[in-house]
């Protein structure tokens, strides 16, 4: 290409390019320098630069991927947390409901037992009272009987003479015979 450019420059007659102020020699030298620059850049700079850019791009892509994964993990975690919170809330509601129910049952049971106990106390008190009354009546009856017996003994001792006593014995013997 350099050869073609030199030949083209040497064979040309002064004309259009000279009229435009183009210096072929300078143009060729600048072209060669440009090509050398392009070659040097392609050989030493571009690979490193492209590699750096690729690494940077890969790093960014990896970071984005990780960010995306982290976002997904975060979303999953948030969803899990929400689910756990919902479950915990449901469990708490259930426990609370069960506690209310059990408390109501316990209160009802305690009321029933207290009522039964109170009734039993009343029954026992009445029974005890009845026993005491019966005992008092029996004691009064026994005392009355003793008084009657003592009075009867006293009266009989005074009224039972020998004739009546003999009659009493004969009646007893007659009764034994039968």
């Amino acid at each position, binding site marked *: 290409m350099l050869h073609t450019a030199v030949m083209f420059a040497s064979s040309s007659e002064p004309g259009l390019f000279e009229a435009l102020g183009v210096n072929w020699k300078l143009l060729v030298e600048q072209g060669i320098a440009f090509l050398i620059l392009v070659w040097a850049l392609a050989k030493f700079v571009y690979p490193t630069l492209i590699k750096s850019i690729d690494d940077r791009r890969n790093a960014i892509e990896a970071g984005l991927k990780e960010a995306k994964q982290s976002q997904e993990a975060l979303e999953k975690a948030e969803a899990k947390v929400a689910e756990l919170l919902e479950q915990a809330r449901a469990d708490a509601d259930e426990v609370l409901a069960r506690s209310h129910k059990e408390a109501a049952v316990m209160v009802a049971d305690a009321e029933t037992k207290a009522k039964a106990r109170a009734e039993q106390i009343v029954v026992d008190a009445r029974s005890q009272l009845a026993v005491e009354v019966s005992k008092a009546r*029996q004691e009064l*009856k*026994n005392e009355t*009987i*003793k008084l009657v*017996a003592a009075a*009867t*003994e006293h009266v*009989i*001792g005074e009224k*039972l003479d*020998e004739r*009546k*006593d*003999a009659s*009493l*014995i*004969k009646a*007893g*013997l007659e009764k*034994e*015979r039968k």
Partner: protein
Amino acid sequence: MNSKVSRRVLARVIAEKLVADPAKSSHWIKAAAAYLLQHGMAEDADLLMNDVARELFAQDGRLMVHVASARPLSESIRAELQTYLKSATDAKHVELSESVDPELLGGLVATTPEGELDLSVKKRLQKLASITAS
């Protein structure tokens, strides 16, 4: 009488002696009392007399009866009681020992070796009281 014999054997021997020779009854009773004292059986005297009475009834048909009454027994009551006891026990003879116990209030209590006939007013009152109390 150095060896100790049972109360029932002793009662049977005494009864045999009393039946065989009633005139020496006092002697045999004293001998029995001495035996009881000698062998430390004084507290069995009542039981021995009861056994002797039972043996006399078994051997001789003689019924020993103790009668306690509120007043001394009249002849008619005594005779009627003996008649009744003979008919009730098939005894040939009825011998009464009597005592007066005013606490009986009236009537009598006849005690034989086999039982007791209580016709006292006290007993009737006790019975009345127990029936009324129950």
